[in-house]
Every structure is written in structure tokens, then in C-alpha cells.
């Protein structure tokens, strides 16, 4: 019998982009940003700051001065670049591990610590429209779609950025948000921060999809993979996606490949489920050392500058801690203050109990 003709009706491919290899050496010809050393040093400084903050926060938790905290150790490049490239009027819909972006958009260390310290005031930060940290996995992707629809209806030139984890790509919300973004051609960029783990569940248990970027094919929207520990590659890819969206060319999905070097949160013990060997190898690919090496190789950085930077950042973090430590405990009646714009009569009796008690 002759071969059955199955006519091809659609074709797709997924690419991966990297400019600096693990050691910080170019793995292909570099784009112009790679010569913008002011910019690179700015990004580098911010990443060092982030790590100083992260280290401190873990410490605060260990000494009982903070609740559960989710570290960003090893993932600093992703948020740093997104925060750098988003414009002020853009809208961020983050998960709970996006300090790198948020600290560039009005959130203060004190806000982040308040959030993890069990105080809603952490979400009342100095940005009028960004969404706050989102705990229910992937649900923020739909808020981002709604925000993007609002932007589109009002014909504004703003982009919405939704950030979520690899685990989040298994939730219906993620697919539904991509799908509607595609149908409505929304100004919305999804960035999947694939740190290989969702608590104890490794990437391959989440999905048989070879890449997470290919999930965008289900929504008919373009996507790609990028080395999320390579600041330069991240910058190229995210910039283009944001530009596209801003110019009315619709949504985009970026899978940024990185690695969660720390436990999931301070409440987690990763030794129960992953090998030290894997973590050691991941340390070889971490983002800060990589750009550091590149800067040093280009004579734009040295040990002196490094020592000064480290001290400066620690001091900066320490300073910001004061605000957190000096924050008075919320009043018990604060529970009621923002339930509704105006407290309904039906709640007055309960309010009284609390204000007396």
C-alpha cells in the first residue's frame, strides 16, 4: 500500500539564546548591549545588591525575625533585566520571588520584609498599579491578561509583564492566560522563570514538554528559550518582546532557564529531594559570577571595586532594615479597615469586639 498523505498544516520551532557561557566567555558574536559597560555595571551592581539582601533575609528568618522567606539565590539575572527594561507605566504581575523586578519599581526592602514578616502593609508599596506578590500559583497570569485588556481598551502604550515559575506552567491559569492573550493580541509578555524546581518537584515531572516555551504554541503565540543566567541574552530577548508588545504586535512567552540554588523557602529542606552534586554543578552556571568574569575580562571591573561594592551593598541593606525593625505592629482593627471601602454595618459589632479586646 502507498504511503498515507498527511499534509502538514502547521510548523513550529523553539530556539535558545545564550551569549555568555558559564565562565563568562562569549559563546557567539555579542550584541551592542555587551559593549554598554555602564549598563552592564549597573545591572551587575544591582545583582550584587540583590544577593546581599537575599542573604540577609534568609538570616533574619533563621534568627526568628522574619517569617518564611523565598530566596532568589541564583536567579538574580532574570528579575534584574526585567526590572531594567520595564517602563514605569508598565504593569507587573509577579509571583512571590520577583524582588529583582519589584525593587526597581517602587517596592522597598522594608516592603518585602513586611510581606514575609506577616504584615499586609508590605503590599502597599510606592507603585500605584503593579500587582503585589501572588501566592496562589499562576493565578497572576490572568490578572496580567485582564490588565493588558484594560490597557488595550484604553489604547495606552503600556506593556504588562507576568512572571511565573516552571511549576506554574502546569496550572490551568497559565494556559488560559496565554490563550486569551493570543486571541485578543494583548500587550502582554509572559516570563517563565524556570528554576528547574517547584519545591521538591523537578522540571521533568511537571511536563513531558521538552521546553516550557513550546507551551505558547498551544495559544498560537510566539515564544523562545533564553539563558536566564546570562544578563546579555536576557536583555536581548526581553527587550524585543517588550518592544513587540508595546508596538501592538501582541503577546510573547519567554522561558528563562535558571536554577534555584537555595531551598524552596526557608521552610524547606532541599537535601531531602535533590543531590548536592546537581546543586554544585548549578553553581558553575550562576549569573553573578558570569557577568563579573566578563567585566573583569574586559577590564571594567577589579577586586578593589568588588570589595567596595560588597561593603556598600551590605550597608545599604542594613540601612533599609531599620525601617522594617521600627515598623510598629499593625493594630488589630486593621483587619477590618480595608475589607470594603466603607465598613458595612453588619461588621460593626465585630469591629467593636476587636477594638475593645
Amino acid at each position, binding site marked *: 500500500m502507498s504511503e498515507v498523505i498527511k499534509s502538514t498544516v502547521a510548523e513550529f520551532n523553539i530556539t535558545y539564546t545564550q551569549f555568555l557561557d558559564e565562565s563568562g566567555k562569549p559563546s557567539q558574536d555579542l550584541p551592542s548591549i555587551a559593549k554598554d559597560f555602564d549598563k552592564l555595571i549597573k545591572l551587575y551592581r544591582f545583582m550584587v545588591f540583590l544577593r546581599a539582601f537575599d542573604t540577609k533575609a534568609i538570616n533574619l528568618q533563621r534568627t526568628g525575625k522574619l517569617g518564611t522567606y523565598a530566596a532568589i539565590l541564583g536567579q538574580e539575572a532574570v528579575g534584574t533585566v526585567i526590572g531594567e527594561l520595564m517602563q514605569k507605566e508598565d504593569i507587573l504581575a509577579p509571583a512571590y520571588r520577583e524582588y529583582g523586578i519589584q525593587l526597581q519599581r517602587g517596592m522597598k526592602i522594608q516592603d518585602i520584609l513586611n510581606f514575609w514578616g506577616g504584615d499586609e502593609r508590605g503590599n502597599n508599596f510606592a507603585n500605584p498599579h503593579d500587582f503585589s506578590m501572588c501566592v496562589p500559583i499562576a*493565578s497572576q497570569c490572568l490578572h496580567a491578561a485582564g490588565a493588558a485588556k484594560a490597557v488595550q481598551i484604553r489604547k495606552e502604550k503600556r506593556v504588562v509583564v507576568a512572571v511565573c515559575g516552571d511549576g506554574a506552567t502546569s496550572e490551568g491559569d497559565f494556559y488560559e492566560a496565554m*490563550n486569551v492573550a493570543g486571541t485578543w493580541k494583548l500587550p502582554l509578555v509572559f516570563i517563565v522563570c524556570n528554576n528547574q524546581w517547584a519545591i521538591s518537584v523537578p522540571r521533568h515531572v511537571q511536563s513531558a514538554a521538552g521546553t516550557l516555551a513550546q507551551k505558547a504554541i498551544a495559544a498560537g503565540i510566539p515564544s523562545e528559550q533564553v539563558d536566564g543566567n546570562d544578563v546579555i541574552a536576557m536583555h536581548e530577548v526581553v527587550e524585543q518582546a517588550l518592544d513587540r508588545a508595546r508596538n501592538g504586535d501582541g503577546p510573547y512567552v519567554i522561558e528563562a532557564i535558571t536554577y534555584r540554588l537555595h531551598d524552596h523557602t526557608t521552610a524547606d529542606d532541599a537535601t531531602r529531594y535533590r543531590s548536592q552534586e546537581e546543586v554544585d554543578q548549578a553553581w558553575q552556571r550562576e549569573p553573578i559570577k558570569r557577568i563579573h568574569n566578563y567585566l573583569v575580562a574586559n577590564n571594567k571591573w577589579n577586586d578593589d571595586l568588588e570589595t567596595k561594592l560588597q561593603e556598600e551593598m551590605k550597608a545599604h541593606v542594613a540601612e533599609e532594615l531599620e525601617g522594617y525593625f521600627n515598623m510598629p505592629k499593625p493594630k488589630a482593627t486593621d483587619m477590618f*479597615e480595608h475589607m470594603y471601602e466603607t465598613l458595612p454595618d453588619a461588621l460593626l459589632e465585630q469591629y467593636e469586639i476587636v477594638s475593645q479586646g
Partner: protein
Amino acid sequence: MPEITLVEAVTQALAYEMGADNNVVVFGEDIALNGGVFRATDGLHAKFGDDRVFDTPLAENLIAGITVGMAAQGLKPVAEFQFMGFIYPGFNQIVCHAARMRNRTRGRLSCPAVFRAPYGGGIRAPEHHSESTEALFAHIPGLRVVIPSSPARAYGLLLAAIRDPDPVMFLEPKRIYRHVKQDVPDNGEALPLDTAFVLREGNDITLVTWGAMIKETLAVADQLTNEGLSVEVIDVATVKPLDMDTILQSIAKTGRCVIIQEAVKTCSVGSEIAANIAEKGLFDLHAPVKRVTGFDTTMPYFKLEYDYIPSEARIKQAVMETLEY
């Protein structure tokens, strides 16, 4: 002015507020060209266009989630769930986000949204099309749950719901979508939320109800009035937060109370009303509070739906037992 039905009053309120406030957008499944499966959005797409009246992909979690996103960014979204039975995929977004956006951000963001859904039984619809689960939302802090029971109240309460700065579940008793017609002036006048309506004043007994059960309850009240009794009928209207003052005042006067709801009995709005009476009106009572409710069973397929929905006979019997206690 022609008289209109409850569902037409919904359309009229939507059209009025869309005309008055550019931030109001209306969306859901089959609501644009088709005008909604009950025609509640009929004509809106023609009048206000694609940007303000649009169909979504088929996903209720999506509908609820984008509503939260739009509302947080300054729109006033009015989302339709095709039937209350299909709200549950969106439950997470409503409970974890819509209800909390203001509280979580200490007022920095909020969720001035309306989630509309036709609800309740009695129209020979298939499975999942007939339940009354208002209590699930009434349980959740941060939400309002509003249920109109006449064309005029549908119009006035929906306007109030859209204008309210917080999220409102607006549940439309589809059994009475076309039950009566009323002259409802299209004057943009809202009715107050969080307020029960006393539909009949009386001294012998208080009947507390809402939504489609208004129909049977008023019929029983009329019968009893004809029999010489003085019956007070309260339409709760906003079932969360509850206007217990109006109910308790009535009971202070009548000393007897029957609560009538189509929903299942356990952990319901009727439970909450009865519990409040047990806490605060206990010694006003001459007889135990009675609840006439749907049963604690799955709403049956429609062959038995009128065996499930409280009948006039069941209501009357409960009233008589309470009066004779």
C-alpha cells in the same frame, strides 16, 4: 413607558450604566452577538461595540481572573457566568483575589467588579444549571452577594452593584426572569445595597426570603392575608452582608419567623439568619425559627425539581406550625 421583566431590567441597568460610565465593560460567554443565553445583554454589543462588550474564550477561571485584573487597573468590569453552576472553575480567582485585592494591598488596589450569574431551578434545565449556592459566596469576607427579586429591584440593585467600589456577586433568579412585568423608569437611580426590603408589613409572623422564592412566599402571604392574618414579608436582597436589623426588628414585633430559601439547608444564608436570631432575638420568639429550604441533596434533574424547590404547601405548613406553636 412599557413594562419590563426582571431580565429586561438587568439589560436596562447595564445599558444605562455603560452609557453613563465609559469604564464599564461587559463580557462573558455568548454575551456579545448572541446577547447571552437569557438575552440579558441583548443589544449591548450593537450599542457599545467590540471594545466594551465582548465574548471570552470558554473558561470561567479566565473570566474571573481577567475581571480581577481589569478591575484593579481602573475598569468597572461586569462579568457574566452563563449559569451559576459554571462559576466554580472561577472560584479560586473570586475567593483568593477579587475578595481580597483591597485588603491585601491596604487599599492600594481594589476590585470594583460585578460577577453576574443566573441561578436557581425551575426552568427544566439540564444538570448543573439549577443550583442556588449563594452561601458559598456569602461565607467569603470581602464579597457582597446581591439577589434581586423584582424588575425594579434588579434595575436599582444592579446599578448599585456596578457603582459599588467592591466586588459584588449579582445572582439573578432565572425562574422569575420573566415572571412579572413592572414599569421600571430608566432614570439611573440605584437602590441601597446591604438593605433588606420589607415587601409586606404585618404583625403576626415574619417571612424572610430572597430571589425566586419571593414568588411562592408572596403567594402564601396573600393566602394568609385573605384568611385574616397579618404577615410581614422581608426580601433580604443583599444576603451578604446581612441587614439583620430589619429582620430582628420585625421579629421583635411578630415573635415568629419562617425563613424560606431555595438553597440547601446546611451552612446556608438561612442558617446564618436563624443563628443570628438565636443569638439576638431569642427571647422575642414565641415559637422556634423554622427554615423551609431545598433539601441537603444534589438538586435533582428537572423531573423532580419542583419536588425539591419549596412549594407553597411546604411554606404554608411551616407558617401554620409556627403560628400554632
